[in-house]
């Protein structure tokens, strides 16, 4: 097998990978290759047919396939090389990329590798529900693929476990297709999806959302016949005596997404246990020099617009990396209080930086303070903070003078 040299290899042709490729090419980097395991470019957006994408990036509201097509058209117009039906199976810290396709094994040696593999759905919790394993249990994304891409309706009487956005979007989709969605059950005391989806996907169709509830038993032999649902206490344990049975032929799980990082681990990229994605600096560079990450593989985004913007920022940094190299980011960003994580986790302190973060629980009228050492260098008030919504805070370069580590905290007053 001979090794093909490439300046930049992009793993994953979803919105993240596509946006990075277009921006890189425009920044004068010509020798780019996108590798995508599916038959078509576009990633998850191919199956997200509802609208609401693109307001931030394009100033208009588009469906997922339309949003993706804008980038695919640009990739084609710019003559960027891509291979579909090609799965990357190996990555080393020296940036050797091994892929398989119908043509067999291929090996590439890259100067820089961009990780944009996206995420997959969690099934956590659902696996431990007692009962048989009848047909009729799907993750929300799989149900979305069946209904939107394969024209197969998954069921008629539906229960949804988890209030993630994809589950709520599927509640509406299945209702429009004539199914009866009985209810959505969420184990946490707050919803995990966006308020606008609760409004337009559940409230519009009279679908009730029960917080602090979970499925405690699955019933049925060949096909699902019913689920038992219980209320949970503050420790999320089911409360005996609160069981209630719901007849249904379908259970949809929408219990979260998890970055797909097998390849990153293979290359020795260090992951952040909070995001389950790589630890990166403000250039989206991982702990392995020359390996970069953006989009859902880095941290789960709820809006594709921010995936594109993050990937475009990454592309600027990769262009700089291949031309002149990047400065080291030696300041660590720590979190405390109810700040769940930040991306990036490392910064140089040389330039303005925007930290993305999520709170660990819903809060109102809170301040987010950023300290360097003992000095307060940024602060912003938030009327509401929700785990479902990624927030941002800017740190100006001129405030970062001491070189000490940075801490992001919540404050009440």
């Amino acid at each position, binding site marked *: 097998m001979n090794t093909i040299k490439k300046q930049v290899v992009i793993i994953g042709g979803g919105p993240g990978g596509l946006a990075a490729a277009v921006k890189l090419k425009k920044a004068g980097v010509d020798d780019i290759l996108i590798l995508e395991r599916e038959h078509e470019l576009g990633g998850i957006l191919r199956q997200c*047919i*509802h*609208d*609401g994408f693109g*307001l*931030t990036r394009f100033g208009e*509201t*588009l*469906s997922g*396939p*339309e949003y993706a*097509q804008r980038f695919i058209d640009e990739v084609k117009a710019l003559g960027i090389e891509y291979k579909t039906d090609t799965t990357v199976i190996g990555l080393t810290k020296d940036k050797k990329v091994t892929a398989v396709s119908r043509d067999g094994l291929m090996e590439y040696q890259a100067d820089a590798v961009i990780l944009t593999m996206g995420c997959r759905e969690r099934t956590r919790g659902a696996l431990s529900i007692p009962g048989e394993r009848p047909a009729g249990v799907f993750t929300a994304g799989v149900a979305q693929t069946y*209904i*939107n*891409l*394969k*024209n197969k309706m998954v069921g008629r009487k539906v229960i949804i476990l988890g209030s993630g956005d994809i589950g709520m979007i599927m509640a509406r*989709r299945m209702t*429009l*297709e004539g199914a009866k969605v009985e209810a959505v059950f969420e184990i946490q005391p707050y919803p995990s999806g*966006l*308020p*606008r989806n*609760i*409004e*337009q996907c559940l409230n*519009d169709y009279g679908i009730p959302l029960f917080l602090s509830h979970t499925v405690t038993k699955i019933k049925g032999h060949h096909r699902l016949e019913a689920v038992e649902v219980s209320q949970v206490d503050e420790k999320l344990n089911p409360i005996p005596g609160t069981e209630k049975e719901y007849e249904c032929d379908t259970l949809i799980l929408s219990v979260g997404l998890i970055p797909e990082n097998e390849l990153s681990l293979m290359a020795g990229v260090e992951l952040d246990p909070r995001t389950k994605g790589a630890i990166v600096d403000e250039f989206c560079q991982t702990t392995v020099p020359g390996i970069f990450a953006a989009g859902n593989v880095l941290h789960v985004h*709820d*809006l594709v617009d921010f995936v594109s913007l993050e990937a475009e920022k990454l592309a600027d940094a990769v262009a700089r990396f291949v031309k002149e190299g990047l400065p080291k980011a030696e300041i660590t960003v720590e979190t405390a209080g109810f700040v769940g994580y930040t991306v990036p986790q490392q910064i140089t302190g040389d330039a303005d930086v925007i930290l993305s973060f999520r709170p660990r629980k819903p809060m109102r009228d809170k301040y987010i303070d950023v300290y360097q050492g003992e000095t307060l260098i940024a602060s912003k008030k938030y009327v*509401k903070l929700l785990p479902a*919504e990624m927030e941002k805070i800017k740190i100006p370069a001129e405030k970062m003078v001491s070189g000490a580590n940075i801490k992001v905290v919540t404050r009440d007053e």
Partner: protein
Amino acid sequence: MNRTLTCILCPNGCELEVVYEGNEVQSVSGNKCPKGAGYAEQEIKNPMRNIASSVKLEEGSMPLVSVRLTGPIPKAKIMDVMAEIRSASVTAPVKIGDVVIADVLGLGVDVVATRNVGRRS
């Protein structure tokens, strides 16, 4: 009367406090942009929504092509429009923006394709 609404026009999802009398909105607060006030007014008078679905595709490389409306329709008409969409079919190839049903149910909006699909090879 008072009502709390969630504006669905953009991902900010502002919580709107609306004071109204019958069909007349007297005040809206909580909106980060002027669009929210318009949304609240519409929502009190006659809620409008856009919908997305799929239409059967003959001779296409996929069995379906995704569609949406070119503008919002009254919420009460959603299921009627869905019935039209379900009974429609188109023949490949289709391109983004192709009109699948013009002026659906006389509501003044079209059902358009949101995806490029070629012919089955």
